[in-house]
């Protein structure tokens, strides 16, 4: 038996893009069905960055890898609220230089800094974007001081946190403003119907309506009929759905990301209070890369130390985890393999990314040694611990693809919007050649952002949705 639904607008995916679109559409009086593959779980259903979070809220339990010369581990949220439920809540506006680049390369219309400013202003109010009011954690202070010792400046990123709004008896008065705390409750209050644990496998146009076919978690078949569809399944699943449905040959021909390499540093004194924080200190490098703090729980440290001695993680109170991030620029794609249902994302690092990571690693190690690190452990196979500045020369010969242990949490731009032949959709997300089909997620960005992309994804989703509603 097939479960059938009819609605005016189906939004597929409830992450930052889909949640914003569903909310704005419902508040404009439209009949919206929000479909999500993951479960409907509260933020409090498991600990932050815990093993249970991995099992409950990540696609494929987090066991996902981009194939290529360097295998890059990546993670995606798969829960109502998407990636916003599992990330660190850091917020950036799109850098103006990135918008200018997109305008030039994709002839993107109405996407200047000034065009997007009203959407960012609104987001920042809705998400309580601001700086952490307390003192920075010790791992962040080490990075900040170390950066200044090597002539760089560290800055704190803003967060999507509400301060002082949780109950009085809570130990700490703040709450992360993920989609399940903000736009999804608003969408539901405005009449949106939510359909969790439902995977859409294909969509097609029949008699002037979109027909979405899929299955629910209990294997029941489902069919949704809608006049309009907004796709927000993320940079891997959106192009896979378009390709599987025969709707776009360009979808998935590109894929951008921000490759990261993790580094653990051991100090003589305790630096890790392990409160679950990912400290928000970030250092911008002259080559476009950046340095920052990473999750420093014992389990995450053990993974970072896998190519050294994972047992070092038992001294986790004296260890901090950091990262070097390159701004993107390699070549990626999302492919389908006949006979398999899951898409296969691939990526090849560019030489500029390799150089950026190498230079960033050197700078980060210098900064950490300058503030008293006794050993630094980059995630590079066969490198060994770096014990002094003299050991930095070993970094130069170790950056071949097969030895780098890279990760990423930002996958983007697999269905870029714009007005060129390479664009999958027009400047406002309308998929070329298909009426009533829109993109509003990370896939629709034109390239890497160089900073945490959630703010950019949400601003473009709001802009595209308001344009659809005739309000922009």
């Amino acid at each position: 038996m097939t479960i059938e639904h009819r609605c005016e607008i189906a939004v597929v995916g409830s992450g930052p893009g889909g949640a914003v679109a569903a909310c704005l559409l419902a508040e404009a009086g439209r009949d919206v069905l929000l479909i999500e593959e993951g479960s409907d779980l509260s933020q409090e259903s498991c600990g932050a960055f815990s093993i249970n979070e991995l099992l409950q809220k990540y696609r494929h339990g987090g066991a996902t890898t981009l194939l290529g010369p360097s295998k890059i581990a990546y993670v995606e949220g798969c829960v109502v609220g998407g990636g916003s439920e599992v990330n660190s809540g850091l917020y950036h506006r799109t850098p103006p230089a990135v918008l200018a680049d997109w305008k030039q390369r994709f002839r993107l219309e109405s996407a200047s800094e000034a065009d997007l400013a009203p959407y960012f202003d609104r987001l920042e109010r809705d998400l309580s974007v601001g700086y952490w009011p307390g003192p920075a954690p010790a791992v962040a202070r080490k990075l900040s001081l170390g950066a200044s010792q090597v002539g760089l400046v560290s800055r704190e990123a803003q967060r999507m946190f509400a301060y002082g709004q949780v109950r009085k008896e809570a130990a700490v008065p703040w709450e992360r403003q993920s989609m399940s705390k903000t736009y999804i409750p608003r969408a539901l209050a405005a009449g949106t119907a939510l359909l969790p644990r439902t995977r859409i496998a294909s969509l097609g146009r029949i008699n002037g309506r979109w027909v979405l076919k899929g299955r629910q978690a209990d294997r029941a078949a489902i069919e949704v009929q809608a006049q309009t569809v907004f796709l927000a399944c993320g940079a891997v699943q959106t192009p896979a759905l378009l390709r599987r449905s025969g709707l776009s040959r360009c979808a998935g021909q590109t894929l951008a990301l921000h490759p990261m390499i993790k580094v653990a540093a051991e100090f003589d004194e305790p630096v890790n209070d392990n409160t679950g924080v990912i400290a928000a200190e970030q250092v911008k490098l002259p080559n476009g890369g950046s340095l920052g703090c990473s999750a420093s729980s014992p389990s995450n440290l053990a993974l970072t130390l896998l190519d050294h001695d994972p047992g070092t993680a038992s001294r986790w109170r004296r260890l901090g985890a950091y990262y070097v991030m390159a701004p993107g620029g390699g070549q990626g794609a999302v492919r389908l393999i006949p006979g398999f249902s899951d898409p296969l994302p691939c990526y090849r690092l560019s030489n500029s990314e390799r150089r950026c990571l190498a230079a960033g690693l050197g700078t980060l190690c210098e900064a950490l040694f300058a503030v008293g690190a006794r050993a630094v452990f980059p995630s590079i196979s066969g490198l060994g611990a770096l014990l002094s500045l003299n050991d930095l020369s070993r970094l130069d010969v170790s950056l071949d693809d097969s030895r780098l242990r890279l990760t990423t949490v930002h996958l983007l731009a697999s269905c870029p919007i714009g007005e060129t032949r390479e664009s999958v959709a027009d400047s406002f997300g309308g998929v070329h050649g298909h009426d009533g089909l829109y993109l509003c997620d990370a896939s629709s960005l034109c390239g890497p952002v160089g900073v945490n992309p959630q703010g950019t994804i949400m601003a473009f989703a709001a802009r595209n949705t308001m344009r659809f509603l005739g309000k922009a």
Partner: protein
Amino acid sequence: MRWRPAVVSALAYSFCEEAAAGHRDMGAPYNDVARFVAREEAAMPDHLRLGVRLATLAFDLASIPREGRRFHRLPQDRRIARLNRWRRSCFSACRDFIRFYQALSIYALYSRLDPVLSRETAP
């Protein structure tokens, strides 16, 4: 016990005993780690899962010519020797196979030291 859970459990126990190194919070039994590794393997994308399962079978059988028994039936010292052989293999697929199971096992083992954090206690 069916062969795949038995091999996954043997791998998880081997990596945990290697990494625990007398740490008092890291002692056996490692059934929690083995269960986590099995769940993660089952949750992988289908194309990767097929490759991992075939590699797991190959790894289990590969000890027969030299040891006379499948990997999951070997004593711990011989298991470690087999792991080290694949770790140092000239084939990257063998090294990646070992790294995959080691990463999951070590992550689950050290998560025993993670405090229980709710989203409200961060940062």
